[in-house]
């Protein structure tokens, strides 16, 4: 029983974090921009989503709103970097720090508190009757549980993840999307095409953080609330998923990079589940996350060296 519930947990978490990892793929892999903003934007997405469905708004609309809010935060990071020439890491730190306040005030004011940050809860709970994604059509047609798994929730997350993946694949084939590759690889090239590389970076950061916010929306549904500590550790999960996915399936040509990233996110969550199954207390989660990520980094570098020797 415990085994089945941990399968449910890692699949659900895997698809949930895969959305953010796809965003990281855009900023980290394509644009070569290590973006720390997501620590803040995941929570922004969660808060916006939870408040909106609390007001009875359709969850798809609420997720779109979460995406837009996340994208705006990403734009701020981009503008700080492009216009004010602040280093990528610092931009992320600045914006995610600022978002701590923004998220708190939005949470409080959204629940009837005052702009001083007082007078309401700092957690947005999702009520039993709130229209979460898995409570509406078509997911409500599914049986509530199969093999003790909440497949409504799982399938809803899978569908969101696949929609994001397909849209991202389509976007990356467009002129605008292809320009992101050019900008990340060689800014001079974008410039020589008569395009502003800064604009391309801002677009990429908007996508990356928009997707992080969508993960926040899914997290809020998964946990039944959005609380202020939700964003902690997101960077590690995001980058680890991307690196695991792209290095494990490095030589699998038939898989698109976006598919690899999703698989990477699931593998990472599966590893964490195994650790939990082995009896390590949940308090050790973040430590385990960092250790697993370190192992993934070392293994991927070893594989790269081996690959290079093989090529010679």
């Amino acid at each position, binding site marked *: 029983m415990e085994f089945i519930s941990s399968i449910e947990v890692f699949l659900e978490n895997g698809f949930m974090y895969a959305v953010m990892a796809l965003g990281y793929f855009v900023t980290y892999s394509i644009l070569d921009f290590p973006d720390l903003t997501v620590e803040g934007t995941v929570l922004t997405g969660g808060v916006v989503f939870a408040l909106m469905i609390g007001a009875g708004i359709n969850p798809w609309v609420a997720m779109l709103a979460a995406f837009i809010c996340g994208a705006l935060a990403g734009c701020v990071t981009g503008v700080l970097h492009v216009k004010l020439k602040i280093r990528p890491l610092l931009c992320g730190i600045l914006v995610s720090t600022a978002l701590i306040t923004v998220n708190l005030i939005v949470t409080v004011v959204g629940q009837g508190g005052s702009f001083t940050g007082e007078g309401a809860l700092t957690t947005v709970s999702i009520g039993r009757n709130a229209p979460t994604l898995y409570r509406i059509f078509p997911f409500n047609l599914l049986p509530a549980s199969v093999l003790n798994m909440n497949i409504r929730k799982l399938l809803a997350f899978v569908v969101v993840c696949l929609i994001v993946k397909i849209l991202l694949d389509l*976007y990356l*084939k*467009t*002129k*605008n*999307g*292809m*320009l992101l*590759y*050019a900008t*990340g*690889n*060689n800014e*001079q*090239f*974008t*410039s*020589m*095409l*008569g*395009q*502003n*590389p800064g604009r391309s970076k801002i677009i990429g950061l908007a996508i990356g953080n928009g997707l992080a916010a969508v993960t926040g929306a899914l997290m809020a549904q998964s946990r039944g609330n959005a609380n202020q500590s939700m964003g902690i550790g997101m960077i590690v999960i995001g980058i680890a998923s991307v690196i695991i996915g792209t290095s494990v399936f490095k030589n699998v040509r038939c898989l698109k990079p976006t598919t690899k990233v999703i698989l990477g996110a699931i593998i990472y969550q599966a590893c964490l589940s195994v650790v939990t199954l082995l009896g390590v207390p949940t308090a050790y989660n973040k430590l385990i996350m960092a250790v697993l990520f370190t192992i993934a980094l070392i293994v991927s570098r070893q594989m790269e060296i081996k690959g290079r020797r093989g090529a010679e």
Partner: protein
Amino acid sequence: MIQLNNIVKRFNIATPDETTLFDGFNFQVESGEFVSIIGSNGSGKTTMLNLICGSLRQESGEILIDGRDITHLPEYRRSAFIGRVFQDPKMGTCSSLTILENMALADNKNKRYGLGRCVSKKRTDYYKSLLAECDMGLESKLGVQVGNLSGGQRQALALVIANMADIKLLILDEHTAALDPKSSEKIMEITDRFVRERGITTLMVTHNLRFAIEYGSRIVMMHEGKVVLDLKDQEKKNAKVDDLLKIFNSISIEAGNSL
């Protein structure tokens, strides 16, 4: 075509290392000229190209192209009418994309980069015909990632890409310097063919005196931010590598270097 008027360019401003490279520098290029620029390191050749392209900004003075003042135009806007190939073959292409994707991106230059599909199957024959002109076998490698090409192949691709759009000015910044002798010969031939066919105004910085003599319509030698030799027409045709070397050496000795 190009006018540099009264250019002042300093480096390391407000530090003890402050140096003035250009102090009231003037330079003109006529339409259709193919200018080879030679000179020792630090003479200002590459800086001049960077100023024209907008990668560097001058402290004062103005730059005009076809009579239009481009002094305040950012680099990416100037690229609309400037094609550029760098010494480093990596600079002119995107290594994580395929040849086809690189060309499709370049094909769209000066148009909107919107949400239309980037690679169009209809254009592949056109791309192949452009690549076939280089005679490097690139036309059969459209699906290959540019990062996997040799330096010579990449530079040939960069040259094709730089010439794809309707440019007024081609800037070649020691574009054969990083290649082996055979590849650099080849790239120079392709360059010459492109420039002749399209009659495009070209500025080429080179350390290869033979290239400067064999190709192009004008030779300019620079030294410490000044033009010290400017040969056109018949004078250019009569110039020999030895003559250039002599002048080169005499300047060098004046500057305190003995050979």
